[in-house]
């Protein structure tokens, strides 16, 4: 069946398209799927494929000519097919567009915009409903609405005066198209009388953004939902700024070896000492009450990766513990969490949080503050970096620390000073 090749709409904001090339000459045959032409919008380029086998019978837009989406570019039809009806449709549309010498002018784009919202297109189905092949005489039989009643509408097809031609879309399709930002003129209808239906629109919308096949839909429930809710709120409300610093950790390793603990424990001890020097970080923030509350104890949450989502049990009052105490408290807590034996009490009362992604190989990240706290320290992996010594270059182990703070309460300089103190304390950790 003959059809009009139309300027597609590439995205909602496209107003004008330009023909870059015709890949087929007039009177040449095309097969379904062949590239017939190439066009360019304000933002992108697209190939127009033949919708069915046929011959390119007419070309209305030459290379470099511009026209709004939906405008007729040519006609593909059978070699001997009668084109008079399609041409009549196209000519009235073409004359509308070409009446304006410069298609870039406001008038032309307005016409395009009008056409998109022109409800007169809806009148089209009324006049050509008899495509169904049900003869008018049928109306003498058991009464239905497919017969003569439709013919009585008569007159010229109203939609022919718009660049859309006889675009037919159902109300539901229009509603969905408006919602999904899909241009109806570029969709091939599969509904009654080739109308564009809601499912055609859905298909076009999903095709536009790449094919996507749902394999599994997982409910967000339980702990995951809590995480989503808490961290979502934190990310929307707290003003997150992350400052990274690479700190040499040879002393940390030495201290860990000497005490037979993990470097995480040594880092926690350094963090606790740093919090003593910067109590504003050992705190919570209440935006409603407009209060920044500082605490005596260093109740440091340590993020632990478990099935079902990260949990952050709190190691209470690590400021009062020595390194061995921190190590055994952390190990006991870790075991409880991994066995699923932790309680809500284990997760509350935190004043600061440490999250170690370094064990998974990260170089830097932007941890999200655990509300209502005001800062979180991210720990990254250990790397060996060359360091200039008095006479030489040595490779020494380093860790990048990523400190996120809430800029509503603290400033970048505070964070930088915090990291400077952390670097000093870790450097001096052996002397204690």
């Amino acid at each position: 069946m003959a059809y009009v090749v139309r300027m597609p709409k590439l995205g909602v904001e496209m107003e004008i398209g330009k023909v870059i090339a015709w890949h087929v000459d007039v009177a040449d045959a095309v097969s379904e799927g062949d590239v017939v032409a190439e066009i360019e919008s304000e933002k992108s380029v697209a190939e127009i494929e033949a919708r069915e086998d046929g011959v390119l019978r007419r070309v209305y837009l030459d290379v470099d000519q511009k026209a709004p989406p939906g405008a007729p570019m040519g006609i593909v039809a059978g070699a001997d097919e009668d084109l008079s009806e399609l041409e009549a449709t196209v000519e009235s549309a073409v004359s509308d567009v070409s009446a304006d010498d410069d298609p870039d002018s406001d008038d032309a784009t307005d016409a395009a915009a009008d056409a998109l919202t022109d409800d007169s297109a809806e009148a089209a189905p009324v006049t050509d409903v008899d495509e169904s092949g049900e003869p008018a005489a049928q109306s003498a039989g058991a009464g239905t609405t497919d017969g003569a009643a439709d013919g009585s509408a008569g007159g010229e097809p109203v939609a022919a005066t718009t660049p859309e031609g006889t675009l037919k879309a159902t109300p539901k399709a229009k509603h969905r198209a408006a919602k999904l930002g899909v241009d109806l003129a570029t969709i091939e209808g599969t509904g009654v009388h080739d109308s564009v239906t809601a499912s055609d629109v859905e298909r076009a919308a999903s095709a536009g953004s790449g094919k996507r096949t749902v394999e599994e839909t997982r409910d967000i429930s339980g702990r995951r939902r809590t995480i989503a809710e808490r961290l979502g709120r934190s990310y929307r409300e707290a003003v997150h700024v992350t400052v990274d610093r690479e700190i040499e950790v040879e002393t940390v390793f030495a201290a860990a070896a000497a005490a037979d603990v993990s470097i995480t424990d040594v880092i926690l001890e350094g963090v606790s000492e740093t919090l003593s020097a910067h109590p504003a970080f050992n705190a919570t923030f209440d935006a409603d009450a407009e209060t920044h509350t500082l605490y005596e104890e260093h109740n440091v949450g340590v993020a632990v990766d478990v099935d079902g989502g990260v949990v952050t049990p709190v190691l209470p009052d690590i400021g009062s513990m020595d390194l061995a105490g921190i190590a055994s408290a952390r190990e006991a807590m870790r075991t409880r969490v991994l066995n699923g034996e932790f309680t809500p009490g284990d997760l509350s009362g935190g004043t600061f949080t440490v999250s170690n992604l370094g064990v998974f190989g990260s170089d830097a990240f932007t941890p999200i503050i655990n509300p209502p706290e005001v800062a979180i320290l991210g720990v990254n992996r250990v790397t060996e970096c060359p360091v200039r010594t008095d006479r030489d270059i040595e490779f020494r182990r380093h860790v990048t620390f990523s400190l996120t703070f809430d800029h509503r309460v603290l400033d970048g300089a505070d964070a930088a000073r915090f990291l400077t103190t952390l670097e000093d304390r870790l450097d001096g950790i052996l002397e204690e």
Partner: protein
Amino acid sequence: MSAEELADRQTETRTVRDALRDGIREEMLADDRVFVMGQDEEDGGSFEVTAGLHDEFGFDRVRNTPISEAAQVGAGVGAAATGIRPLVNLSFSDFIGVCFDQVMNQAGKLRYMFGGASNVPLTIRAIEGAGLNAAAQHSGTVHSLVAHLPGIKAVAPGTPAAAKGLMKSAIRSEDPVVFFENKTIYERRGPVPTDEAFTVPLGEATVERAGDDVTIVATQRLLGEAIAAASDVDDVSVEVLDPRSLYPLDTEAIADSVKKTGRLVVADESPLSYGFHAEIVTRVLEDAFWSLDAPVQRVGVPDTPIPFAPSQEDEVVPDADDVRRAIRRTI
């Protein structure tokens, strides 16, 4: 009756005729103000719906009238206005023209014109429908004429359960109700709740068959035809609603169904122009326009009197095939 409505009830299989008689009889037993009058009602009327009631209740409660619809309905309006509850059998609905003033101007307007001081708890039975080669004056479906009138309720059941439940509600109604019975479905069988408290409220539709792709709003005989057609098209999931009441109309149930399916077929035996089909379609356009995904289809009788010749009558009266074709036109 939808499966849900019947789920928790004890039922028995009854014909539409039995169900109507059961409903009338139960109301006569429950309220001695209820009485029956009409042509040949002492012998059960033209279709034996009230057969046996004269023997059971006697001349005071079941009596014949002269062949004058004007007199029957006029007397009914007067009786109702004085506080008793007449059930007038108009017989063939085509003759409603003879008593149209009594229906439109008296029954429908008395309560309004007396400022609510007078009620008209009158029920008029009107028998309609083609298919019995009874010729043009005994085969029409005129319910759109009556449903159009302010002040009058109109019902047109398609199942035995709806027939009984609506009859009881109609007799109990303080407003005039015209009860349309399609004469070709008196022998249609179906489950009817045995519980005597069972009624169908005026103005409540029911989903007779659930589906997802197309909604058919079908009345009376065409309800059965629509369900048959729905079973025929196994590639399309068809929902069939019986509005049961023509006025008040359960717009919400119909619109909710169309919001789900996006497609609508209206099947009713009244003439297509200016009637029931248009009313249903318009209400759907008002309440569910953005859900429509195909042109709406109507199945009804073309604008012609019902022919006498059987072959011609068959030609104009719609059946399951017509409903099936209408379904196809929406897909």
